[in-house]
């Protein structure tokens, strides 16, 4: 009797843990189905090709083509992540390898603090400081541009790159550094040829997370990118104003009549975003597996 009761209890705990474990899968499935349901109509009504590659997004005429938004998101992501890599990876190397403990103890929490500033605050700073200084430096009309978005989102992505890369570099075993130094390698040679290659999967992870963060960012980018769904010319013109996928959803959703083509088209953007993020995650996993195979450790 007692043993039986124990068994039931055991089973119950197992089931509860199982439910907790699959709940995130259920949530993501739910989101996927919901987005698909609301967005599918946009692909049907606008036509898949026209909806994705159409260069005009105008609610006045009922034309919905996502190309300007896709290229906008792409430009801002490339610019921001590039900015964050160029500044962030050297910072992570400095923090983990060179910084004396006293400086590290100040620097690291400061970087983490950057992460907890709400994005709207970044937006304010962007509008007040970034736009005016870009306007004055590059002789632009008002500074709204992909460049402004890239810089602002680049700063926002910095903590992700710095903290995760720093952890990855710090986690490289001391033995490896000593093995290299004992062969007469300099500190820099050791960092470049042993430490960084050993930390590469963590560094790649930080970059992919930063891409995810930048791609999904909405409030800050809305304030500085200009919110005009216009295809940049030439297509890599960082000095033009434009719009991104997320910013477009946020700026039109409030006024879109429920059930209208506009409403469904906005969900369509969401579907595409979700697909892009999923593909990125799969790529990240593939890279990780490949790297592990190459260096032979998990």
């Amino acid at each position, binding site marked *: 009797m007692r043993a039986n009761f124990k068994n039931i209890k055991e089973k119950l705990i197992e089931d509860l843990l199982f439910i907790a474990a699959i709940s995130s899968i259920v949530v993501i499935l739910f989101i996927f189905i919901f987005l698909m349901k609301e967005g599918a109509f946009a692909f049907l009504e606008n036509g898949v090709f026209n909806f994705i590659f159409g260069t005009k997004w105008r609610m006045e005429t009922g034309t919905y083509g996502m190309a300007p938004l896709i290229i906008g998101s792409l430009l801002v992501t490339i610019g921001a992540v590039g900015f964050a890599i160029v500044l962030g990876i050297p910072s992570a190397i400095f923090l983990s390898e060179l910084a*004396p403990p006293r400086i590290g103890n100040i620097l690291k929490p400061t970087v983490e603090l950057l992460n907890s500033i709400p994005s709207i605050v970044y937006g304010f700073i962007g509008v007040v400081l970034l736009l005016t200084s870009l306007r004055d430096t590059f002789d632009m009309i008002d500074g709204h541009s992909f460049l402004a978005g890239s810089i602002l989102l680049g700063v926002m992505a910095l903590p992700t790159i710095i903290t995760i890369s720093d952890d990855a570099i710090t986690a490289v075993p001391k033995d490896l550094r000593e093995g290299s130094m004992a062969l007469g390698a300099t500190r820099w040679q050791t960092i470049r040829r042993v430490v960084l290659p050993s930390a590469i999967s963590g560094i790649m992870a930080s970059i992919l997370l930063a891409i995810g963060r930048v791609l999904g960012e909405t409030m800050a980018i809305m304030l500085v990118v200009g919110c005009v769904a216009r295809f940049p010319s030439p297509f890599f013109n960082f000095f033009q104003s434009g719009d991104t996928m997320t910013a477009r959803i946020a700026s039109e959703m409030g006024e879109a009549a429920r059930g209208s083509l506009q409403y469904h088209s906005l969900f369509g953007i969401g579907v595409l975003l979700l697909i892009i993020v999923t593909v990125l995650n799969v790529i990240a996993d593939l890279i990780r597996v490949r790297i592990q195979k190459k260096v032979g450790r998990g």
Partner: protein
Amino acid sequence: MIINIRVSDFNLWYGENHALKDINMEIEKNKVTAIIGPSGCGKSTFIRSLNRMNDLVPSCITKGDIFFDGMNIYEKDLDVYVIRKRVGMVFQKPNPFPMSVYDNISYGPRIHGEKNKKKLDKIVEYTLKSAALWDEVNDRLDDPALGLSGGQQQRLCIARTLTVKPDVILFDEPCSALDPISTSKIEDLIRELKERYTIVIVTHNMQQAARISDYTAFFLLGEIIEFGSTLQIFENPNDKRTEDYITGKFG
């Protein structure tokens, strides 16, 4: 008898901790010198002083001199990278880099500027043969080194040390993470290597010291208690503490 390394009144502190006290010692060329003693007696600290690996510890301060091949390795403006090249080191835990066998072995020559692929191939083959590993790995030079067994990894690390043409090889408890068969392979290898290199080995295992070394130094609490030929230390120690340690009364 040629002296390769001469340690003279050498002291070392980690912050407040006086880890090595007035060490005087002469290490003979092409011989195996074993350092024994209980945990925390300073034996690892001592051999890490011989190639200035202790420099990597921020709180480390030294006093006194260590002469290698006539030059004082604690001289202020000395090129420490040259010392580390000529005084190689094999560590307690095998530490191959997370790259292929070939890249591990060619790492040393490449950081010192060797780019010629043919020369690198030659170095890889020669040093792997010297480390008695060539027959086991010659068909998988491009595989990750971390896929080798523990004993193979340690021999790989020995081969890697040989690539930069050292005069002295320091072994810091090289077998403590290995099984008995791998251990005996490494011991055989050390016996072969002393023909061409001067060897200093720290070991926890007294039988190992007795088996492979020509000289033995017994360290206790940062001091050398006794230093002499291995035969004398193990058969006829002068100091009571040495005798107590080698007979297993403490340790």
